[in-house]
């Protein structure tokens, strides 16, 4: 099977799929439509009451937890644009900004904001380096698998290994795509570049693999043809030997006969041999 063909069809399938935004929007719309079609009846209202008190208790707990969460979000440079807690962080900063009075205090507050943004940038850059390093390690591991696969002599096992590598690459691209869809729109172009680079790398790999596979198969075919030739030659030799054995047998039988019969039989044996 051609992995490049599977990969190209996979790409078309991906491109023709719904976006994550559409997926969530439709899910929400269908949920609302469901609620409008099947509103909760009065018979279950008492359950709602019980649930409401339960929900209130949960909300109180959540508020208590959010205070801790807010502190975590505010202080942590790891909470950046891509983080779920980033809106919490920005809200706290906004509130703080409004509470600060006086030009000097405001200037100091803004300076602190600059330092906080720089810390986020530093953290993002470190994460970016880690991300790029992890991608590089993934690529190195793939190279190692393919290098070992070259040494596999069984065509079937080799084909299975290459198929597994291709599937791992496709899953990797899918995962990168999913991560990209989760990112804010300003950060998506960066990951898109990585996805494009990985896709191009994979296409080249598939081209090389297809060439190598073709050469490998040609070699195997050559060996097979040589083996067939050898077998045919051996069979011819065996036939020759058999014929000689048959002739020798007949001559032996003739030699054991009385002398006058020998001449006649030898003559007939020679005639038969000449006919054949």
């Amino acid at each position: 099977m051609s992995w490049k063909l599977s990969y190209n069809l996979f790409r078309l399938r991906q491109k023709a799929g719904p976006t994550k935004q559409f997926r969530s929007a439709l899910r929400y719309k269908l949920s609302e439509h469901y609620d409008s079609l099947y509103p909760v009846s009065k018979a279950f209202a008492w359950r709602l009451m019980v649930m409401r008190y339960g929900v209130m208790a949960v909300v109180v707990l959540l508020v208590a937890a959010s205070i801790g969460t807010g502190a975590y979000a505010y202080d942590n440079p790891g909470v950046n644009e891509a983080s779920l807690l980033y809106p919490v962080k920005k809200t706290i900063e906004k509130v703080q900004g409004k509470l600060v009075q006086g030009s000097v205090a405001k200037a100091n507050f803004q300076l602190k904001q600059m330092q906080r943004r720089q810390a986020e940038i530093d953290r993002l850059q470190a994460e970016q380096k880690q991300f790029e390093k992890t991608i590089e390690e993934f690529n190195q591991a793939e190279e190692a698998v393919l290098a070992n696969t070259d040494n596999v002599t069984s065509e079937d096992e080799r084909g299975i290994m290459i198929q597994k590598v291709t599937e791992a690459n496709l899953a990797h691209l899918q995962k990168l795509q999913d991560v990209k869809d989760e990112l804010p729109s300003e950060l998506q172009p960066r990951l898109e570049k990585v996805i494009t680079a990985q896709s191009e790398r994979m296409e080249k790999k598939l081209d090389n693999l297809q060439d190598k596979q073709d050469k490998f198969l040609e070699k195997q075919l050559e060996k097979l043809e040589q083996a067939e030739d050898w077998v045919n030659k051996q069979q011819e030799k065996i036939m020759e030997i058999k014929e000689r054995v048959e002739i020798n047998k007949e001559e032996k039988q003739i030699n054991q006969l009385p002398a006058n019969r020998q001449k006649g039989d030898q003559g007939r044996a020679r005639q038969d041999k000449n006919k054949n």
Partner: protein
Amino acid sequence: MDKKKFEQFYHEHLDKIYRFVFFRVGAKRELAEDLTTEIFIKALEHFGKYDENKSKSAWIFTIARNHLYNHFRDNRRVEISLEALDESLYIEVESQGQDSTGLADFLQKDSERELWAILNELPEDKRKLVTLKHLYGYSYDEIGEMTGISPGAAKVAVHRVMKDLQSKLSTK
């Protein structure tokens, strides 16, 4: 009707139905989204009639097909029969305004255009199999259910078509 069950149904079938619609509306994303929304709202309203044991995918596939047919008929954008809707891999839809053809935007690489051309050259029954499996993402069980053959036969048939595609690509 169980909301969670419908949600699960939605997650299982959204991608495939969306792609089915996408190719039949000239690869125009906005139109595909609108029609897919309408299809799933219809499915939700009639979900009580859905029997998973009788048909996993055929039910919503039929809704999608009929909805598309009604859309083309009502909007008079394209004259098309129900059979043509099934048989075509792609249907060009006239657009108002400055839109270029959706397909030109969709197929950006030479390899994609080449593959697309060869897919269109395949006989309808072969094209349907490879489209269901590799473009829409249906499983062999679902393909078997939709085409009336066993999953095993579907697998063999798809494999043969892929070999056929590969040999056509190699000769180009």
